[in-house]
């Protein structure tokens, strides 16, 4: 369409990344369609389900409500950056062990959101975990196993 593309230089999961994008494209779409990281999911496109959660400079955000152009010079982290060559992040391992996923579509969002919590508060209470994760919807699990997994990961970190 009529607008000129924007050249964005950013860092994604610790790696420098450059891309061209239309100005009106969301960060979620840029990640999924331009860069090819489909781990962050589309659920609602209006900031109510958290399936698109990524981290910008250590703060969790709904990437459907961020323009791709806005991450110029920022540090973006997605679910794909959580595991390392050494293995899974303790949260990912705990989610598997505690059956904290059923269909799994909300899981990347919950993992990134939970990491955002544990990176700053290493030993949150169950109440705090539920409060922090209120912006992530799950329709399959009823949340209990997710909360248990976050607690377990906190213990194992």
């Amino acid at each position: 369409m009529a607008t000129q593309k924007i050249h964005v230089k950013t860092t994604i999961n610790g790696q420098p990344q450059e891309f061209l994008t239309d100005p009106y494209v969301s960060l979620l779409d840029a990640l999924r369609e331009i860069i090819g990281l489909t781990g962050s999911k589309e659920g609602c496109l209006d900031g109510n389900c958290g399936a698109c959660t990524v981290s910008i400079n250590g703060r969790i955000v709904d990437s459907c409500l961020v323009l791709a152009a806005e991450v110029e010079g920022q540090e973006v982290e997605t679910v794909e950056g959580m595991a390392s060559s050494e293995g899974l992040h303790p949260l990912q391992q705990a989610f598997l062990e505690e059956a904290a996923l059923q269909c799994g579509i909300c899981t990347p969002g919950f993992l990134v959101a939970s990491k955002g919590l544990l990176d700053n508060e290493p030993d949150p209470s169950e109440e705090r975990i539920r409060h922090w994760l209120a912006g992530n919807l799950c329709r399959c699990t009823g949340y209990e196993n997710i909360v248990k997994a976050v607690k377990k990961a906190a213990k194992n970190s």
Partner: protein
Amino acid sequence: MVNISDSKNYKVIGTNPIRHDGYDKVTGRAVYGADIKLPGLIWASIVRSPHAHAVLKSVDTSAAEKIDGVFAVMTGKDLPALKDEFIDHGEGTENIAWSSENIMATKKVLYTGHAVAAIAAVDRYVADYAASKIKVEYEPLESVTNVEDATKEGSPILLEDLVGDHIGKKVKSTNIASITRHEFGDPDKAFKEAEHVVERTFTLQMVHQGYIEPHNATAIWDEEDRIKVWTSTQGAFPVRTSTAAILDMDVSKVKVTPLEIGGGFGGKIPIYLEPVVATLSKKSGRPVKAIMERTNVFQASGPAPGGTITVKMGTDKNGKLIAADTSIKLEAGGFPGAAVGAAVQCVFAPYDIANTRIDGYDIVVNKPKSAAYRAPGSPQAAFASETVVNELAEIHGIDPIEFRLLNASKEGTRRADGVVFPVVGNEEVLDAAKASDHWNSELGTPMKGRVRGRGLASGYWFNVGLKSTVNLTVNTDGTVALVEGSTDIGGTRTSISMQAAEILGIPATDFRPTVGDTETAGYADVTGGSRTTYATGFAAVKAAESLIEVLKERCSIIWSLDKQDIDFENGSFFASKDPELKFTFKELAANLDSTGGPAASSGSVDLESAGGAFGTHIVDLDVDPETGKTDIVRYTAVQDVGTVIYPAYCKGNIQGGVVQGIGWGLNEEYFMKDDGSQANTSYLDYRMPTALDLPNIDVIMVEKPNPGHPFGVRGVGEVPICPPIAAIGDALYNAVGKRFYDAPMKPGRILNVLGKISD
């Protein structure tokens, strides 16, 4: 066939291995429908009606076609005209002409959001922009958005050609597509003789399954007029059947690859997008992808019906139910097919009642065409019948569990629609609820400013069997490739593998399960009806048993013995007359090449019935009488699960169903505006429970094995959504002293019932 009275020293069943698809799902690698990438892929956008009821006069795509980046456009006229006939898509039948009109209208639009045209363009943004330039002319008509208005004298008729079947009588010019009646004994006489009679009328609103992943489909129409489809679905084979039928082609021309699915709960059984993207692919020569926006998932997929249910029940002086009568009116949406047939089967299922009448009404209204939602029809019916049961128990001064035990249906009881119960665990569930810690514990102190109440209700779902196939191939390292066609919504790749693993005496982690496409997997009906662990698991057991026979053949070759002198026990093969001759499964696998090559087997089932199951739930909640704010503080779900295969997922599935029921009971509903459109087409105002809205959900899994399955499995997934609405109503009654007959029991309604506000 494994005898279920055998020792319960299972090695695999009852354990919790890491699910086979787990690593892909926690790393973001798993490919869901929206994730698929194909060379040259273009995007579709769909034009939808802003009117709830209108004649579709014309669609002008000319301006849109001129936009840079647009590849193709289509209207309903691009789909073939079909006969008004029913096809079997695997969990019921569908009228194919109606389904086609639902996918894209040609004559009338029957709900706001009804698709009328589509466009394919280079990216999603261009497609959306171009779609907004398609000009559609409508002649708006009066709309009706609830069963009462749709059945009033003089109400607008949605489908002029519909001939209603009202208990055998053919009726024209009606919005009531069908009325069915099931009657036993003489309820009218019995009511006259009853000591106590309670009759109540209940209303419920339309709700949505709320899966976090929107509908999606990608298709290529190739040079041989064959169609390849990638989609998130509850069943690749039913998608193939439906897509082929809508496009008027043979199923052999359609290949469906099911990708990972982000929730379905019944809503991803019907198709909405596949014929559209296929047609756009034909016209553009490109692969085409469509993702439904969340607002359109609400407006134009398949929500669950609301409606009006009247229940009348009568008891003798001892509290024995002697008569029950109900009329269940559910809204089908724009085309017939509300889940009233299932509601009829479930409404009085927990009770042995001699004199019953059940009338079920399937009523079209100007709302999206309803689809299955986790035990479709049963939660609605249970809200009504369980509330009346609780009222009668109170009148008699009998504890609600004792009242239910007094009247409990069991093996041999005739259900009110005529089916006789096989082995079922209704009483066992009630006994377990009675003995539970929750039921026997003090209510405790409510939150500041609140009053607390405890409630109880039961529920039932019949579960289904249907067809599944499992194919096994042994690899030379002793691992087993398992191919099946049941899309995996929550760990069934593993629960199926575990059953084969138990038979073969090898760990579940030695399986490599794959959900195949319609050309690689054997036929499977939908992942729905709580049938997957049951039926596909059964097929896996049969395949494993066949595999043992194949492998015994190999041993007979190696040891030069007759096959009948070879035994298999505890994962090892040995010669019955010479125990020195022995192979573990792995050792034998290493010898396959020299004995004839790969060893494979297949197992298929076509199960006419399944083990139905009961649940009884206990809930404590705190209500703020000043604001109506309600918080669940404690919840226990007791359910008969047959035999637990995969405990963490069995429990998790029950918790998930409970939470959907809680949302349904407290806050979820479609708000309809005066113009017939839905006001709350966003997760902002369609209020599903968040992590902060719930306590932990305790689950007590009662095992009353189902003799119809080698391990005794009963379907688990649907029962848990049936009791919560009535349980919440009962708890509210015990908290504030007023009964609730309208769902959801949201704060405004609570204040209203308490007399704090008017209206």
